[in-house]
């Protein structure tokens, strides 16, 4: 490996790493505020990229149908629940959140498809269409299980991924897509050339990371989210409604997923199931960070990007094996690092209906 190649690989790694950072931040955000390990998060990233690609090809993105289906189910579940609890006066609000707001961008995308959309129109439409996916999934799949153990929530998340990736194939077909580049600029920094696309990706990761930080530090809602992560009982005792913070977390994370998808679309060819792998690699990054700390997550995600980049140079066929296999020694190291601390791991909730 010559130094030039090493630098090139590093640049590549940092670019993909920056995308993993955004995805991993979303994963950690959801996990800390809801205890859900949101496995289908990567699928949402994939949906974002493929939605933009479909719009650029003047097709109706299948995401429209996904959002409509989810919105319909969520609305029915919510309205039924409200009626049963005799809270009919909250139905108009439910219709706004679960029907009107998600359907509006989907309808826009439906109508806009077929026109030659400029980039500045395609990206916001994509963003708005993808945004409701995670909150709606939360309402349908996770909120009814708010008291379940992390494990049950994880299994539900995996099942949701199963359904979501299946639908992605139905909507987008098996062929791969690559969206038009956001910028074609190139810059020379000393001896090396840096693509504008890479700079855009890294800058976006930095900006959104910073915005997230400010949200947590400066706003009451951000603090409520942190409080929920630190102590769920304490949060309830000060009147924080966990289902509201959860919905906020899913919404924010969904925004991160949409942005990541839009950013990664021009970098690699994406298939219906590529999002899942991106999500899992971000997971590896989040796990390196212990699923608890945002700064550590950022470092972990960039490490995964770099590791992947160098692994693909060394043996491109086995790069996935290397990335996922590397999780084992990392976990091993973490388990030894935390050993001798708490012997009693979290008592599993055993309220399950077993006879």
């Amino acid at each position, binding site marked *: 490996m010559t130094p030039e190649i090493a630098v090139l690989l590093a640049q590549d790694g940092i670019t993909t790493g920056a995308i993993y950072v955004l995805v991993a931040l979303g994963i950690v955000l959801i996990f800390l505020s809801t205890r859900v390990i949101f496995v289908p998060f990567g699928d949402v990233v994939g949906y974002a990229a493929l939605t933009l690609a479909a719009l650029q090809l003047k097709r109706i993105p299948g995401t429209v149908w996904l959002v409509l289906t989810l919105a319909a189910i969520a609305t029915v579940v919510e309205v039924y629940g409200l009626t049963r609890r005799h809270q009919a006066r909250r139905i108009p609000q439910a219709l706004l959140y679960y029907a009107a707001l998600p359907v509006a961008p989907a309808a826009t995308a439906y109508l806009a498809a077929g026109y030659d959309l400029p980039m500045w129109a395609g990206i916001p439409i994509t963003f708005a269409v993808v945004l409701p996916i995670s909150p709606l999934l939360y309402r349908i799949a996770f909120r009814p299980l708010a008291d379940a153990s992390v494990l049950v929530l994880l299994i539900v998340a995996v099942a949701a991924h199963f359904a979501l990736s299946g639908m992605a194939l139905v909507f987008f077909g098996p062929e791969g897509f690559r969206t038009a580049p956001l910028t074609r600029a190139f810059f020379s920094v000393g001896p090396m050339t840096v693509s504008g696309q890479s700079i855009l990706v890294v800058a976006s990761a930095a900006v959104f990371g910073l915005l997230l930080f400010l949200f947590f530090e400066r706003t009451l809602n951000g*603090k409520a989210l942190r409080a929920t992560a*630190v*102590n769920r*009982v304490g949060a309830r005792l*000060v*009147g924080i409604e966990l289902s509201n913070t959860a919905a906020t977390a899913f919404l924010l994370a969904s925004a991160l997923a949409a942005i990541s998808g839009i950013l990664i679309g021009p970098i690699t060819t994406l298939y219906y199931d590529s999002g899942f792998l991106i999500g899992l690699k971000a997971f590896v990054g989040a796990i390196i960070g212990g699923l608890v700390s945002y700064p550590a997550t950022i470092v972990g995600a960039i490490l995964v990007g770099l590791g992947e980049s160098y692994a693909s140079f060394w043996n491109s066929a086995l790069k996935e094996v290397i990335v996922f296999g590397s999780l084992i020694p990392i976990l091993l190291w973490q388990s030894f690092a935390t050993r001798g601390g708490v012997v009693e791991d979290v008592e599993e909730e055993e*309220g399950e209906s077993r006879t």
Partner: protein
Amino acid sequence: MTTLLSVEDLHVSYGKMEAVSGVSLDMQAGQIVTVIGPNGAGKTTLLSALMGLLPCKGRSRYESDDLTALSTEERVRRGICLVPERRELFSDMTVADNLILGAYTRWRERRAVQADLDEVFRRFPKLAERRRQLAGTLSGGEQQMLALGRALMAKPRLLLLDEPSLGLAPLIVREIFRIVVGLRELGVSILLVEQNARAALETADFGYVLETGCVVHSGPAAGLAHDPRVIASYLGGKVEPSS
């Protein structure tokens, strides 16, 4: 006086195990009512159920509301606050953030919250000194004060206190009880669960003695403090009270 809280035939179970079986109690506005009893009698369970953290059977009314229909968050909004035995602070956040979050349900009244924050800092000068410190780094007594202060930020009308003296040195226990009495003067009604039966009975207006999930004695606190059965079980065994 008006009845603030009225609980009738309350049952709470963990799975098939009943921890509170048929407790009834009443509280007048402006009173301090204490529930004493041995470990495992169901005191903490009772408070958790009143806070809506545990599902329960039975009737409970708070002012004119049917309490059973309200979620925990709704109860906070109506002025019921629990300071739990484990304090449940946001240990990775600063003292100031903990207090600000205490007023989470009052996010519309920014000014009033700021004034209340100053008031809490005035009442607990230790917390003011440590406002930028993480809650987890406070000492036990300071944590208890922070938990109290956080509850006060919600402007409670009914404060549920679970073992506020737990693990605290006698001097700090005295301080805490002094604050509790002071709160009543502000018009806050207090339901106090205590293992330190003597201190609790000296502070309260009315008392209930809980054993294996049932109320076994009840009456004005002064009367209970001199009830020989209560003395035998809870005021230090065969040790004669010094007064």
